[in-house]
């Protein structure tokens, strides 16, 4: 029997693994894993170790803190259990999971950790880690994603990244990268640290930069509160604002697709293609008045959910076609409203949409945009097309209506010039025309003008603009060709092409670290019969093939 599809719907009222408490400007987010509550059967979540289900709740909490709690200015991530902060990702779960599950899980946890940093940087919600006990592997990676790490000084609590020595894998959720890039730990110390199964405690941890502060047990709670209040005082979160509710998504799930109010996806399992259609605004209402029902926020939530569901539940749908339908003018009108409102909620919407676009950027699926008559790839929605690996634009009437005068166009707006940076810190246009800033400047002059297929082709905005006679065949052949290639090679290739230019912590985590982790996960030394992941906890030592490659 196929396992039940993973749902990303959560609500704080029914969290199984986290306690969320808001107390004025401070939110307390405590990990309290229900060891019998794994999202799949077959493992126990001991010692506050986590699996995908635990992390989905964490993601839900971070989202609600941003949208529903404008009063929160500092978030303290702690543990409700005694003497253990978090033991990281559950090893039995990792050992028992198929490869794509492990990788998908790692990607999602990374995205959630990045969300902490995004909230600290762009929303005035500073994350602090209150480490009150054992903090190992993924547990320390949660702490590393916070701006400050406080460690209880009890002469036994440690921080550790024991993946290399104990498991034969990497701390792949940004652990290695954040130690050196974010916290500037000296590389020789980082090397010692990451090869020590027992980790580092107390003063050494502070001296090496692994934590910011050690606090005696009895002062711990108070010091954490103080630090949180300090962070809150420095925040630019608005005074007296009222948050909005994030109601459950209105979603219809069928065998062949998913349908929301503003997004739908149709599956063709035979060809491995999911066709995703995004609808433009029918009612470009002001989010300050309509909250979660306003178009861009609703769309973003639905798209986020769709991406997560497809990534987790539909690994065989290797190609996603992105389409849009609607009025370009309406998209632009709504976008103007959100982008220029100078309001905390609009700011949150912009950053949320940015994160969802980033999620798309790091999605290991072939992304193809189809720009047809009746589509509305304008400004914010044009970013979706630009996120794709290829863009095809129909140069002719709609396929099913030869007599129609309707022609495809796309429209650039200010939003395409830096509002939604990618993980590499560049806009999608800067990435597309990397090393050719003149081209981007040239495009700035085209803001607001509907670009015809030939304009778009000439300006380098589309891969190809076949006419109505060629369209169906070109698309079919492109998709079939894609489907025939090695999915692993495609994943590597696409991730490479999507992230040009400078390295950032994000590109390192998604580009390098997860690539290495993926590779290591498939090696016999990690996942073979005698590999470290399999042997962990059996009392037997892993047998390594000693050849370095």
């Amino acid at each position, binding site marked *: 029997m196929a396992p039940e599809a993973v749902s990303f719907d959560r609500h704080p009222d029914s969290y199984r693994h986290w306690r969320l408490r808001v107390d004025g400007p401070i939110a307390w987010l405590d990990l309290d894993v229900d060891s019998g509550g794994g999202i799949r059967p077959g493992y126990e979540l001991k010692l506050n170790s986590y699996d995908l289900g635990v992390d989905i709740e964490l993601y839900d909490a971070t989202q609600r803190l941003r949208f529903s709690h404008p009063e929160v200015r500092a978030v303290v991530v702690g543990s409700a259990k005694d003497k253990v902060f978090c033991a990281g990702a559950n090893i039995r779960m990792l050992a028992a999971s198929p490869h794509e599950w492990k990788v998908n899980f790692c990607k999602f946890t990374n995205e959630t950790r990045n969300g902490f940093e995004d909230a600290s940087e762009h929303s005035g919600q500073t994350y602090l880690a209150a480490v009150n006990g054992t903090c190992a592997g993924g547990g320390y990676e949660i702490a590393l994603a916070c701006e400050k790490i406080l460690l209880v000084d009890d002469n036994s609590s440690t921080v550790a990244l024991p993946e290399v020595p104990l498991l034969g894998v990497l701390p792949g959720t940004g652990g290695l990268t954040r130690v050196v890039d974010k916290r500037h730990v000296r590389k020789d110390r980082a090397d010692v640290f990451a090869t020590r199964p027992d980790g580092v405690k107390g003063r050494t941890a502070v001296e090496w930069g692994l934590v910011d502060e050690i606090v005696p047990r009895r002062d711990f709670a108070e010091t954490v509160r103080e630090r949180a209040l300090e962070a809150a005082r420095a925040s630019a979160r608005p005074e007296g604002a009222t948050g909005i509710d994030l109601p459950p998504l209105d979603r219809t799930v069928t065998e062949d697709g998913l349908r929301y109010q503003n997004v739908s996806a149709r599956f063709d399992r035979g060809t491995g293609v999911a066709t995703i259609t995004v609808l433009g605004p029918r009612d470009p209402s002001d989010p300050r008045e309509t909250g979660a029902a306003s178009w861009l926020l609703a769309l973003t939530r639905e798209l986020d959910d769709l991406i997560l569901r497809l990534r987790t539940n539909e690994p065989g749908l290797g190609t996603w076609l992105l389409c849009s339908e609607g009025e370009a003018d309406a998209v632009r009108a709504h976008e103007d409203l959100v982008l220029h409102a100078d309001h905390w909620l609009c700011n949150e919407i912009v950053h949320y949409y940015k994160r969802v676009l980033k999620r798309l950027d790091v999605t290991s699926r072939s992304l193809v945009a189809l720009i047809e008559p009746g589509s509305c790839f304008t400004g914010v929605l044009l970013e979706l097309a630009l996120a794709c690996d290829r863009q095809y634009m129909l140069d002719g009437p709609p396929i099913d209506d030869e007599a129609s005068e309707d022609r495809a166009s796309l429209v650039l707006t200010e939003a395409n010039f830096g509002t939604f940076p990618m993980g590499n810190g560049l806009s999608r246009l800067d990435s597309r025309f990397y090393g050719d800033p003149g081209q981007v400047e040239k495009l700035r002059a085209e803001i607001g003008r509907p670009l015809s297929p030939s304009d778009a082709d000439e300006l380098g905005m589309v891969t190809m603009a076949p006419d109505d006679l*060629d369209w169906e*065949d070109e698309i079919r*052949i492109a998709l*079939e*060709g894609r489907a*025939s290639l090695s999915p692993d090679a495609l994943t590597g290739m696409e991730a490479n092409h999507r992230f040009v230019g400078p390295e950032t912590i994000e590109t390192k985590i998604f580009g390098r670290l997860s690539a290495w982790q993926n590779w290591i996960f498939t090696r016999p030394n990690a996942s073979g019969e005698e590999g470290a992941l399999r042997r962990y906890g059996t009392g037997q030592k892993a047998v390594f093939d000693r050849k370095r490659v």
Partner: protein
Amino acid sequence: MPEKIDYDAKIPNNVNLSEDRRLQRALEGWQPRFLNWWGEMGPTLETHDVYLRTAISVGREGWAHFDHVHVPDYRWGIFLAERDRDRRIAFGEHRGEPVWQQVPGEYRADLQRLIVIQGDTEPASVEQQKLLGLTAPSLYDLRNLFQVNVEEGRHLWAMVYLLHAYFGREGRDEAEGLLLRNSGSPDTPRILGAFNEETADWLAFYMFTYFTDRDGKYQLGTLKESSFDPLSRTCEFMLKEEAHHMFVGTTGVDRVVTRSAELISEHDTLDIAAHGGIPLDIIQKYLNFHYSVSLDLFGSETSTNAANYYTAGLKGRWLETRRKDDHQLTDESALLPKPRTDGTWEEREMQAILLLNLDLRREYIADCETGVKRWNRILADHDISFRFALPHPGFNRDVGINSGHHVTPDGSIVDEATWLAGEPRWLPTAEDLAFVRSLMHPVYERGKIASWVAPPRQGINGKPFDYEYVHLV
């Protein structure tokens, strides 16, 4: 504006051209370029008209129409053999599935490459034969040259049709590229080496149509097995026309040998050069040359490309459906004769699927032997003891495992000095070529023929030899 074409009047076809707007548009761009190419690269000799065969249908009866035609107005057509609706894939990993009516995206690049390579050979031979009309030994031969040329042109159309109809914009670009490469051009030569060799005289033309067009027959035969049905059906129909080209080659060499035998008997000497005939040893050298460069067209003896094409179902074996094996070839083995550096041959056992080019080459060699037997019978009938023979497959090779070795016609592996010393006995020398060329005087008088070749036993389409096949300007 591209020129508008009256499709049904100008382009006989059975692909529903008058209804296919995409194909029409593609042809509107390509067809004038083709005519320009024909004007520049087609036969040099000007004629009023030529008695030509035009393909007008694919039925068993009456697929061809004969008439005098002004050559530039020849109706190059687009024909696919009739579709067998139950046809299934005969080999490879898709064996048993219905054949494809569309190009599977997965195999687009490979299929396109196969079609482009096949397509590239078709206009190449027209280019190679461009000047031959100026020295034709009779009106009958002149007519055959034109016939071969227009049909090579039609075969080009056949491949271009596939590129236009099934490969989108890239296909159109590749179709144009077929007209932009030219045989022997230093910058843009034809893809395969043999198609950049000169066909400088009529003996070479007969040898070419015997040996090189016969390679075409075998290549088309493997593509006829393709799971991509339109390609299969195109090739099936092309094979009908190809048969005539080989007929020109077979009977052409026959007639040269017959004439030489007559002169040998008449003058009681093998040295008939002085009597206006071509000595048998020169014919053998021509044979050696054309046979060996044609073997190069089969590619390397071991080929993972060919294996991949086979597994994918793109290109089968000669008469695939008649083979009695599993049509997968993953468990079969075959022997590959390989030259060793110490001058001996070894037989290496390999997976059969890696030796498909060798398999096809063996079929071809067996076929070539029948011609040699024919020509030897002519010599026997004239009580001449000389015998023609195909050289060893390792002889004079530029492609494959033999290319780095010097192999004599009898299969001995020799050093370079021995090779160079023997070469003038094995391959046409500059003097041989000059001599043959010296015999090439046009004979355009009705019923007359050049000194070095016998007249054919029969004319074309029941017409006599002295029929006025060509009206010259």
